[in-house]
């Protein structure tokens, strides 16, 4: 069975500090991993993905994520947080090739404090 865990419901970080939003996954087969961001009253916006290749993936708005197969993790990071990064972040996983449905984590609310 496929599943995603986001252990932190809430992450607070000061503006300018590095941020990390944690995600671990469980999947049968090769994982396809994604991060999405949701702003209030908005849909899900794609940030980045890992399919194969380099374990460090760079995405939109200066975000990056590191795929760690041994720890089955895909943590989202940013070197310097902005107040505008405050939002709800979802990690998602699917499996194998093709366009299979996504399994989402419960989300982490990131608050960047000015």
């Amino acid at each position, binding site marked *: 069975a496929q599943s995603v865990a986001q252990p932190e419901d809430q992450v607070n970080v000061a503006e300018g500090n590095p941020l990390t939003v944690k995600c671990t996954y469980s999947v049968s087969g090769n994982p396809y991993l994604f991060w*999405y961001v949701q702003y209030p009253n908005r*849909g899900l916006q794609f940030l980045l993905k890992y399919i194969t290749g380099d374990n460090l993936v760079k995405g939109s708005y200066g975000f990056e994520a590191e795929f760690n197969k041994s720890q089955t993790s895909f943590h989202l990071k940013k070197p310097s947080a902005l107040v505008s990064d405050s939002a709800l972040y979802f990690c*998602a996983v699917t499996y194998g090739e*093709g366009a299979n*449905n*996504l*399994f989402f*984590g419960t*989300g982490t609310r990131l608050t960047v404090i000015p």
Partner: protein
Amino acid sequence: EPEVTQTPSHQVTQMGQEVILRCVPISNHLYFYWYRQILGQKVEFLVSFYNNEISEKSEIFDDQFSVERPDGSNFTLKIRSTKLEDSAMYFCASTTLGEQYFGPGTRLTVT
């Protein structure tokens, strides 16, 4: 930049009524999805659609739900007889292969 669109943005309906949620996926995409998000909870998969048929569905997608692609552009989700617990944000998504692109959602409120 092409985007997925959804209408209406908010739908209020009475329990037992039928509702149709509409989506226009990105034009060259081949795979279509519906997800829902109950307030404060995670996004849950409902159904996927490819080549004019359902390719996968979750346990949530029972006989009260149906999907259709009535023409070359629209993708609809119908709930035949709404229940209070159907109140949620419903997201449409589409893809070729790779990341899925989500619409802004339809907030369904069942009273």
